């Protein structure tokens, strides 16, 4: 697979769709902005006792969480719904690699959507704080959620009816991402093992923060492994292409 050409083709597909359905894109942007600001105000009052720094990151986090978790399963669900899944399997030498590239494009797409909010967040919270949060929390969260998303995608190939559950699961992972966890004692180390939980905290550089990347890579690896196993099962049962 020519990675560069496929990446370009994927980006073109996304851009063409966004441009062609520009009204929908614009509406999504407005909804995104309103929901982000609204959730910041609401979360700040409800859960974070007026600590704007937590609430702001939670408000910035939700689109990234949804995009990370839903990329693999969402893309496959869409292809299953449209009936293009067979063509994808016939054209791409490795669907898993295609999903990786689609995830990257989706990350860039959601970053483009969140950019205005990130700029406001950076101005409000400070650029160093925002950058640290991205490195310590957001990237490992993205990787680990994408790994979990691959498991769901694999399950979707075998159990089509799970499709309707993915939205619900999306809400669950969103809730897990913004809950606050203790930052003392064993929790400091424990939370490194679950980079997808409590990622709205914008603290300094926690001790052993790099372990989050190790854990995230493990989730990614396990997710890819499970996806391949389930994909093989779907092929054995003749389920690829069943709508």
């Amino acid at each position, binding site marked *: 697979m020519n990675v560069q050409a496929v990446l370009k083709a994927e980006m073109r597909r996304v851009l063409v769709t966004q441009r062609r359905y520009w009204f929908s894109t614009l509406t999504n942007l407005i909804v995104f902005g309103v929901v982000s600001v609204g959730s910041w105000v609401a979360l700040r009052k409800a859960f974070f006792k007026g600590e704007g720094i937590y609430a702001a990151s939670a408000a910035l986090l939700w689109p990234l969480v949804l995009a990370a978790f839903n990329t693999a399963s969402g893309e496959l669900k869409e292809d299953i719904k449209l009936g293009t899944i067979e063509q*994808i399997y*016939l054209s791409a030498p490795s669907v898993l690699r295609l999903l990786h590239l689609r995830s990257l494009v989706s990350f860039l797409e959601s970053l483009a959507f969140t950019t205005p909010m990130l700029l406001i967040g950076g101005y409000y919270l400070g650029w160093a704080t925002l950058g640290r949060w991205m490195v310590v929390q957001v990237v490992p969260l993205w990787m680990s959620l994408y790994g979990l998303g691959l498991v769901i995608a694999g399950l979707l190939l075998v159990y089509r009816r799970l499709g309707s559950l993915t939205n619900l699961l999306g809400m669950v992972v969103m809730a897990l991402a913004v809950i606050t966890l203790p930052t003392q004692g064993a929790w400091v180390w424990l939370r490194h093992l679950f980079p997808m939980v409590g990622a709205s905290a914008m603290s300094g550089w926690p001790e052993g923060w790099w372990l989050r990347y190790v854990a995230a890579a493990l989730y990614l690896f396990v997710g890819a492994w499970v996806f391949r196993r389930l994909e093989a099962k779907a092929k054995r049962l*003749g389920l690829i292409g069943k709508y």
Partner: protein
Amino acid sequence: MPMLEVKHLVVEYPGPVRALDGLDLTLRRGEIVCLLGANGAGKTTLLKTLCGLVLPKEGEIRWETPNGQRPRLGVLLEGSRAFYWNLTGWENAAYFAALKGLPEDSLDEHLEELFQLVGLWEARNRLAGDYSSGMKKRLSLLIALLGKPDLLLLDEPTAGMDRVSVVEFEEYLHRIVQEEGIGILCATHLLSFAFTVASRMVYLEKGKLKDWEWSSLFGRHRRAVFLLAGEIPQKTAEQYKPYLQDFGQGRWQLEGATDDKTIFKALEELIVEQDLDLLQIYGVD
């Protein structure tokens, strides 16, 4: 040397259902093999297994290509959902070309050739979702033909096509086989199409391949009717007079009992030697 050799292929679905039951098949370069059989006989399963969408339980699939690798496959499966409906025909073709790893520098030229070939050049910038069912089928075919495949696997390629498109398609298949030397395995219910394009026909029944036999075609039907188009010399028409009916304007009906070998001998002579087109076949009680 065959480009494809399948040995004792077994595919089992939950149930358990043996969709393919020890199937053997060979296909040579430059050969068009038509796969006939009733619904559920395993035709689609065989094509899906060959292109890797279904994993066999047992058996071996061996490819013989100059570099010893799997040949470039072009696959058209039944249904018209082989592309994104919110992209134009051209955007779809370019997208799938990228997935197939086709070089970008000569892509426009290649796509133009294919769009001209399938007759979608004028409609290339229209949304694929707005295409008619025949156009969707042709776009699916175009995607299957991307990158000049060595082996084409076609599942009911003429379904939804009008007669003119079917004839054009038949001519196209003959041309690519002659010019490119590719192999084609084609599952179809359209016997006239099979007779026109096939260099060999095989019949699939209960997951096993059988050599072509007329009796397998008509099942319980006791009489067979063939509609033909073309000119029949006087002498030949006289020879088969009890079976032939002239409808005028080059249209003929050949009819006889399914256990009467003469009718099939006549049919082969008329199609192979006199080059008549077989328009339709049906069985009657």
